[in-house]
């Protein structure tokens, strides 16, 4: 009678069914991307938590006030979604990698699928190591025997990231060989350049800068900037020639796939309800305006001074107002007039070509000084000035800077070019605590204040996020003693 007792899920698949056909493998890869795109990770948490925690944004969300005021609790409402979503992405990639590496079936999409799995695993670990420091390294699917994994060192984490991106570089297709929205070999190059650049900016090791250059230069010329800056953020203008890796969102299903619209769109801006929750800090806006008055990117990035609600009411914003929730500007990059209230269409650009140019400029300056670095900067500055109708005076081409000045300016430039694209946390931390203290804490605390602004604590703890309480309580190999400093 034991056959009576053999019950199998009838409405779900088993592992073998998924990995025995090309279509099955594709659906697993889609599952991997969806885990990466999940609200817990790129859909919402990085906007709700990481953006304000970067020190460049304010959030009026009560539930996450601890993180917004740079006193992030280990049970922060977003944090306890972010970490699990990131690790569920890791586990899904491990399942795919293990199945495909051990598969003897002649699957035509095996290499491409494997390449993508390594790519996503590396990209996720790269985010993890920058948010949290050394993390538990899982390289095979979790089983009941492998529940508890200690934190690895930062070095080991980076070693795995580099190894995975190298594998992805081998396995991923070339341009035009696969779907437009999926990463290709040069996406792995771009990511590797960023990995080395992150390591180099912390250690200032010349070999690292060189490694970063060697990767970045392979991407140079392989993509093109869009003609204007503003069109990058026009709805429907997605997966452009500038896009290197972009997470796809679409109005599919009735479960909220991303909170990017509600989080950034001002209240009553359109005929649907939004929070307008995450807003650039006052000094974030001021810095750009002061640096480049009239930069067309300002208009493409910020809604400032005021806006008109859908009912025709004019609402004052920073700098016209500095108190209250509207004492801030708003990010203009995620507008979706026809948002249905649930499922966003707006893609999230994870890495784009202008970022590679910024990296090349920074690397070249570090390796050889500014002389040959200007060319990269001026490439996207020229595009920035080009609004389509008239040519703006700012941002003017760069010239005549010392290596020191160039270094400082290129970091600022990353903010101007990429604000609201989730690079702020990384760029404010990767040059060390002194830089973070000077450029974020002090600039904020000495900057203009409304009645909602927090005073940021002077603490090294904010270089990293805390390991979430649920990991410490559930993982026997991680204790409070392993928590990040200051938490």
């Amino acid at each position, binding site marked *: 009678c034991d056959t009576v007792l053999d019950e199998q899920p009838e409405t779900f698949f088993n592992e073998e069914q998924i990995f025995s056909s090309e279509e099955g493998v594709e659906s697993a890869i889609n599952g991997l991307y969806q885990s990466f795109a999940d609200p817990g990770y790129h859909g919402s948490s990085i906007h709700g938590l990481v953006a304000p925690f970067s020190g460049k944004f304010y959030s009026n969300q009560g539930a996450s006030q601890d993180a917004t005021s740079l006193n992030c609790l280990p049970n922060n409402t977003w944090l306890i979604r972010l970490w699990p979503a990131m690790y569920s992405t890791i*586990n899904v990639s491990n399942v795919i990698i293990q199945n495909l590496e051990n598969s003897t079936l002649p699957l035509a999409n095996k290499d491409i699928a494997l390449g993508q799995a390594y790519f996503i695993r590396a990209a996720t670990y790269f985010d993890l190591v920058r948010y949290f420091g050394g993390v538990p390294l899982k390289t095979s699917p979790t089983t009941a025997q492998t529940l508890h994994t200690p934190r690895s060192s930062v070095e080991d984490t980076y070693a795995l990231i580099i190894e995975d991106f190298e594998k992805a570089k081998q396995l991923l297709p070339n341009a035009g060989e696969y779907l437009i929205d999926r990463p290709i070999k040069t996406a792995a190059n771009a990511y590797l350049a960023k990995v080395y650049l992150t390591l180099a900016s912390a250690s200032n090791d010349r070999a690292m800068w060189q490694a970063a250059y060697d990767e970045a230069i392979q991407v140079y010329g392989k993509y093109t900037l869009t003609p204007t800056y503003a069109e990058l953020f026009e709805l429907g203008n997605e997966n452009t020639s500038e896009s290197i890796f972009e997470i796809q969102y679409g109005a*599919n299903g009735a479960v909220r796939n991303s909170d990017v619209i509600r989080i950034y769109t001002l209240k009553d801006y359109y005929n649907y309800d939004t929070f307008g929750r995450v807003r650039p800090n006052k000094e974030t806006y001021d810095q750009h305006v002061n640096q480049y008055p009239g930069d067309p990117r300002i208009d493409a990035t910020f809604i400032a001074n005021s806006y008109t609600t859908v009912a025709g009411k004019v609402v004052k914003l920073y700098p016209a107002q500095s108190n209250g929730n509207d004492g801030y500007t708003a990010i203009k990059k995620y507008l979706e007039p026809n948002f249905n209230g649930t499922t966003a269409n707006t893609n999230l650009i994870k890495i784009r070509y202008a970022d590679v140019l910024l990296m090349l400029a920074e690397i070249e300056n570090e390796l050889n000084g500014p002389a040959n670095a200007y060319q990269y900067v001026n490439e996207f500055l020229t595009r920035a000035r080009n609004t389509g109708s008239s040519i703006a005076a700012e941002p003017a081409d760069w010239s005549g800077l010392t290596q020191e000045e160039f270094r400082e300016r290129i970091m600022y430039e990353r903010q101007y070019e990429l604000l609201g694209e989730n690079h702020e946390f990384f760029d404010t931390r990767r040059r060390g605590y002194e830089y973070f203290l000077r450029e974020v804490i002090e600039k904020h605390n000495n900057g203009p204040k409304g009645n909602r602004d927090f005073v940021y604590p002077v603490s090294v703890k904010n270089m990293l996020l805390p390991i979430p309480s649920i990991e410490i309580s*559930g993982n026997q190999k991680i204790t409070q003693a392993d928590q990040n400093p200051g938490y």
Partner: protein
Amino acid sequence: KVTDNSNFPLPGASIIIKNTTQGAVTDIDGDFTLEFSKRPATLVVSYLGFITKEIVIQNEKEIAITLESDEQKLDEIVVIGYGEVQRKDITGSVATVKPEEDRVAQSQSVESLIQGLAAGVYVQQNGNEPGAPASIKIRGLNSLTGNTEPLYVIDGVIVDSATEDTLDPLSGGNSYLAPQSGISGINPRDIESIEVLKDASATAIYGSRGANGVILITTKKGKSGKTKFNFTTLSRIGTVTNDIEVLDTETYTKYGNEVRANQGFNPLYYQYPDGSIAYFDTDEAFMIANANTIERIQGVDWSDDTYRLAYTRNYRLSASGGTDTGNYYIAGGYLNNEGTIPRSFAKSVDFVVNLNNDLSDKLKLATKVSATFVNNSASKGTDNLGGTNNNLVRQIISGSPILAFSDNINTDDFEEALDGPRAWIEDYDDLSKEVRVLGSLKLDYKLSDMFTYRVQFGADYRNKERKVWYGTGLFRGSQVNGEAGISTLQRFRYNLDNTLMFKKRINKNNRINGTIGAIIDQSQAQYTTNQAADFPNKDLRADGISFGQVFQPLFFNKQNESIVSFLGRFNYTLFDRYLFTATYRADGSSKFAEGKRWGHFPAFAFAWKLNEEPFLRKIESLSEAKLRLGWGLTGKQGIPNYRTLTPFGPTQSPYSNSEGGALTAIVPTNLANPDLTWETTSQYNAGFDLGFLDNRVTLTTDVYYKEISDLLLNVEIGPSTGFSNYYANQGDLINKGIEFSLSADVISNEKFKWTVYGNVAFNRNEISRLGLPPAPFGTQTYSAFLGRQISGGNYFKTEANIFIEGQAPGLFYGYATDGIISNDTELANAATFNGISPQLGDVNLVDQNNDGIINNTDLTIIGDPNPDFNYGFGSNVEYNGLSLGFFFNGVQGNQIANGNLLREGYADTNTTNIRKEAYFDAWRPTNVNGSYPRVGYNLAADTGFTDRLIEDGSFLRLSYITLGYDIPVKNDKFIESAYVSLSGQNLLLFTKYSGFDPEVNSFSFDPGRVGIDWNSFPNQRSFSLSLNLTF
């Protein structure tokens, strides 16, 4: 010699010479000797369970007296698993509840029928909404994170569904709907008796599902004779009781102004000399100058505005009767139970047919069908966010007491603001409909005097639909332009029992009986959910789900489960006073992997009827004295299906292609644990039953010791695994306790009857092993784990329970406090919290490690949700057809974490209402001894769980009091009896608890969140009138 009708001796029968005090008692062989002073004499021969006989003796020297067994004394037969025994032959711990009229009239569910009546059976209402579930715990907490509900068996049909419900119709977005479940499909009026099997020797026959105890329900059958009709009707009116007092509109505006003044801002409101209030504008001069044109605010008392009288109506008609070869019982009824909140109700229509037929001398057929249709509307809405705008009751309490207040209508931050309760009542639906059919066919074939073969087919079909609608008047609905969700559950379960029963009297001193059997039990459940949003036309509400412009593909899930079992029970009776029982069951379950699938569950029991011993037989007043000893193993397999596998299922949303189209995305859904196996409970029980004066006074005591090992835990694991939990056998639990129950017919004669009864049960739980390495928790190091996070929102976003090896489960874990920082000395010693320096009027958090900083290391044990004991007692007095009955039940020594205080008990800066005392007794420079923090203190949400939330949950409740009158209708040819009663429910409640009701457990069936009051529903006090006619 006294024998029964099959010529077996009856030892212990009493023989009295009529009208004298002379008498004798039969010995082991049924013999007796008696000397007569005069002849003829009349002997009165009586024996328990037999019809008393009078015999006239002339000159006989030896007589043989045969007693006929008393078929009317059905209550002496006790149903145990897969068979029945005479009460006097029971060896295990079995509590029998015979529902009485007064009690049944109060009860709308099986759970409330049992509440307080059986020692060691702890029934807890999980909400006071119509249709809210109750949970039952037998002999303490039997699991840490699994299902703790007992197994229900109705007339041999397994109805193992106490925690079964549809899936949440709306996935995502932090929604949490309170489960609606419990034991449906059976009407209390149709219940003949309920047997609660408590110890392992009684439950082991249910093997893998007996560990939480077993509740056997026997429904009514017809009795031979002409057709009897019974009609009952009940009407009830209920009102909200123990409402929570919040600020009235005027005080609320003062509070708002005080908050603003403390921040150095203009006031929010301005009160004119005539008492009217307006929103403050510009300055006082402006307000005065424009007094005629400025619109005044309109106050509202949300509690008055919302709560209403609740009406309940209940009608039921039954017909029963029978002939020599069969009997029938047919009943049908209607119940309409309205809640105290508009549009909340639970309606049901049901019928039941019980037919018993003797097909031949040897073949008996019992047929049973019952069908119930339930229609529920729950207007409450629950949410595990702290959000007030996701819960009606929360809004009634915390809603700003001003009509058209902007925050009551829409909101800035989804955890912060309120919708008006009116919008909630208008624009929210949580409707469910359920059809449930129970059926059984039971065929008994008498093979010989010794053997009877029984085949029973039992089926339980359930079809439930639950639909939820959020209209645009509600925050959640307005975000998405209307949201609808419909989920369904279709479940068919059947059990096919093949049993062979035998009984044999080997000789006068040795009797055996028993059962062997093979059983198959299978269930197939099918779950669907549909979800849609963005409705251009909202008139159809959830029924118009097809018209949503944003929709989710149908989620379709099937769950199959099988159990195959072999069982045997063997009873041996020696000298009619030593009873031995051995049972054994082997279960194979589809929930476990091959090799781990079979569980073996033996049990042994011994009972000694001391009153049958010669040395005690002389004590006539002692009618029963029985010692029972037992040990046995039972199991548990109450985990979801397929946990030994990793099924690959769809992600919540599909991925999108570059065109925005949907791509099927598949991921592993859970972490497989192929090592999963049975959780086993080893239980020792010792009990003593005493009865005096023909059992007019009975006393039962049981002590037990249970060791539950290899607990099936839904273990929270580090999310670095890719999952947040998995099922594993981990840890051991010890449960020990003592139970007493007493009943006495103090006075019992034709005219006057007075009965008292009561029970009390003490239970101690201890986690004896967790299998976790010790880790720091606060300043201590424990092998422990934390329960589930209470809420996902602003308030109470923390775990509240801790499970520590060596301690009682579910202790409250949070910050200890030491009043309010009321002076500069205390301020100087106060610690900082999360980088925020303390100030006067703040809550004084205890810095356990004295490092000047309040953080995780200062968390400590601050309370215990486990009761010391629970009890119930009652009494009935009957005099000349008039009767008065009452029943009290209570729980002592437990604590409740009243999470609602996080909002109600702090005069923070929110635009929500608070309890009166939180404002009036707030710390102020003028009220330095205030016991509540200063007006404007807003760290309650951040500190999460402090002992300020811990309250004593002990209570004693007058559950009901009933005045009844048996209308004399003897001369009426049509009506046989008429009984009318008036009762009051919940008229008295003695408790220190400040929430709605201390009988609260907001997260029913979730052992990871224990003893929490989170947005509970107010209870009712009600009066009812009922009529019971037999004709």
